[in-house]
């Protein structure tokens, strides 16, 4: 098995694999810090009470700060590019589908672990310094987990890996069945979303159920996320073994 | 460079023969290897090899294992004899046919040739 070559395929361009995501993350973090700095600056001039208020306000409001997606966003693309761009070249260079799939899974796992560690380290620093002394949040947000550090590590890992696998599965299915697959996929997704919305609007019981589900603990949520990732991975591996060059 | 009215390997063999006849490849001298010939003529090495093989079979070239191919002793004279026979077949016969069609007798033809040579 020429796994090393497949890994090389994904990582030969270091800037693309690591440089840009990290750079974009740092820029995004810098912007959050600047905004935080400006807010604190204004609040300081208005007295101590206003300062504490501003800190707490930002700390609560930024729980949902999506700036971290500056990092997660490009990572979501990994699954798509793996199948859309690297797979044809792998076949062209005489690598087998099995070699490609194995190597790519390893790359996904490594990537997920690598970025999960970065996010976790960032979060630990962020929490320890009280949001860099400003009360801002970048790493310590709901998407990557606001609990313990190890929860963030696991959650971010599952998130990145799952998204990569699902993305790869969608791209492979698209290659196989073309536009009709995308229609079916989007229609199915729309039906689910509309169904949930309609249920929430029309039925009190359903509404309660949704709230209960949303409020379920961290562990069940992780199981759900890991489950979705696993299903995506299984579908992808099944499809890629029969995928043809276009 | 190569006569395209014949199969390529025959044309290759004839080119080497031409070289032997005009003294480019003296007797006992080495002729180009298959690969050199192939690269020079931009042809498939197998074709070049087949052309050389033809000459080996005809006794024009001698293969010395590990060294190369060499012009056989007496090859030049033998080639000249063979070409003479071919000359009769390929040039004299059609000449006579055309001459007969035009009503040119053997004597008149000989005169024409003598005159042409003198010119």
């Amino acid at each position, binding site marked *: *098995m*020429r796994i*090393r*070559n497949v890994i*090389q*395929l994904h990582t*030969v*361009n270091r*800037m*693309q694999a690591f440089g840009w995501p990290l750079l974009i993350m740092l820029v995004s973090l810098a912007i959050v810090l600047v905004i935080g700095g400006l807010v604190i600056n204004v609040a300081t001039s208005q007295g101590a009470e206003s300062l504490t208020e501003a800190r707490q306000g930002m700390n609560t409001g930024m729980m949902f700060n999506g700036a971290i997606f500056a990092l997660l966003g490009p990572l979501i693309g990994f699954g798509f*590019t793996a199948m859309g*761009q*690297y797979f*044809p*070249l792998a*076949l*062209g*260079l*005489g*690598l*087998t*589908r*099995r*070699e490609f799939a194995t190597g790519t899974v390893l790359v996904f796992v490594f990537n997920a672990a690598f970025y999960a560690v970065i996010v976790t380290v960032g979060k630990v620093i962020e929490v320890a310094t009280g949001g860099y002394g400003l009360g801002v949040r970048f790493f310590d947000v709901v998407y990557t987990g606001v609990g313990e550090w190890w929860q963030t590590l696991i959650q971010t890992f599952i998130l990145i890996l799952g998204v990569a696998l699902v993305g790869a599965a969608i791209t492979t299915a698209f290659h196989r069945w073309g536009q009709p697959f995308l229609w079916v996929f989007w229609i199915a997704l729309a039906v689910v979303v509309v169904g949930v919305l309609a249920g929430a609007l029309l039925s009190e019981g359903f509404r309660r159920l949704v709230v209960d589900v949303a409020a379920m603990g961290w562990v069940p949520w992780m199981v759900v996320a890991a489950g979705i990732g696993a299903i995506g991975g299984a579908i992808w591996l099944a499809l890629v*073994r*029969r995928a*043809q*060059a276009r | 460079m190569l006569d*395209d*009215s*014949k*199969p*390529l*390997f025959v044309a290759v063999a004839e080119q080497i023969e031409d070289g032997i006849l005009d003294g480019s490849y003296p007797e006992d001298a080495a002729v180009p290897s*298959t*690969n050199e010939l*192939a*690269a020079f*003529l*931009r*042809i*498939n*090495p*197998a*074709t070049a090899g*087949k052309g050389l093989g033809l000459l080996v079979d005809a006794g024009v070239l001698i293969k010395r294992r590990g060294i190369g191919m060499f012009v056989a002793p007496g090859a030049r004279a033998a080639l000249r004899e063979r070409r003479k026979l071919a000359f009769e077949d390929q040039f004299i016969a059609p000449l006579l046919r055309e001459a007969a069609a035009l009503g040119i007798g053997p004597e008149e033809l000989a005169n024409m040739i003598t005159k042409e040579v003198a010119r």
Partner: protein
Amino acid sequence: MTAIVTTDLAKRYAEVNALDGVTLALEEHRIHGLLGRNGAGKTTLMKLLTGQVFASSGSMEVLGGNPVENVDVLSQTAFIQESQKYPDTFRPIDVLRIAAGAYPKWDQAYADRLVERFQLPTKRLIKKLSRGQLSGIGIVVGLASRAPLTFFDEPYLGLDAVARRMFYDELLHDFAEHPRTVVLSTHHIDEVANLLEHVVILDQGKVLLDADTDELHDAALTVSGRADDVDAFLAGREPLEHTRLGSLATATLAARDGDERAAREAGLDISPVSLQALFVHLTTANASATDPATPVATA
């Protein structure tokens, strides 16, 4: 040994039979030409033989095994395709690095020399390369991989005559020093005719011709002379092409033993048929045979 054997190989897509009952045997250590018009099935055949797509029916053996998902076979096989896609972020050097690891017999020094010769900008984004430079990547990979079985599918689109000649010289030179099986698919038939030892012509997914180039020289001949004489010579035989100008006529036909002598005796001029001309005759004759609406080309 035979490098490639296919038996009744077929590939059907929804609307077309891209390949239809192809039975072939290609000897190893030879340069084979795979010729055919656009859409004849050449690329499909090579994609099947390299395991990129799956056959609908039939069987194949490449370097002694089924190529599909076969590391032993595929690591010995290089397929340089005209339509190869590269990741958006890749530079030629990235492709060369990966190819270096993927092919056991890769020669880096040779690759470097080829990069130099073809003036390939290795550090520019592939997206920004010209068509000729894109072809250059394939040529470097195809030659430097030294794969025992190498497919070149239109390897020099966008290259000028000088660069194409450079490719032929490199191919011949390296082939002589490192014998291997080469399958060359191209439209520049006249340019490669002398490089090929064996030729397969595909047409509409079927094998139209499968012969050594030596034999092909005698496969067809063109006779010309007075129209009555040409007609008498043809004597009911179906020529590949037959044109008439006033009282003169020219006919190209598949040759039989004794044709040359008979033609000469009938007072006709004889000229050989080049591979390119034979290709045109065969494919147009085939097209008019299967599709009566297509007019016979008279050029």
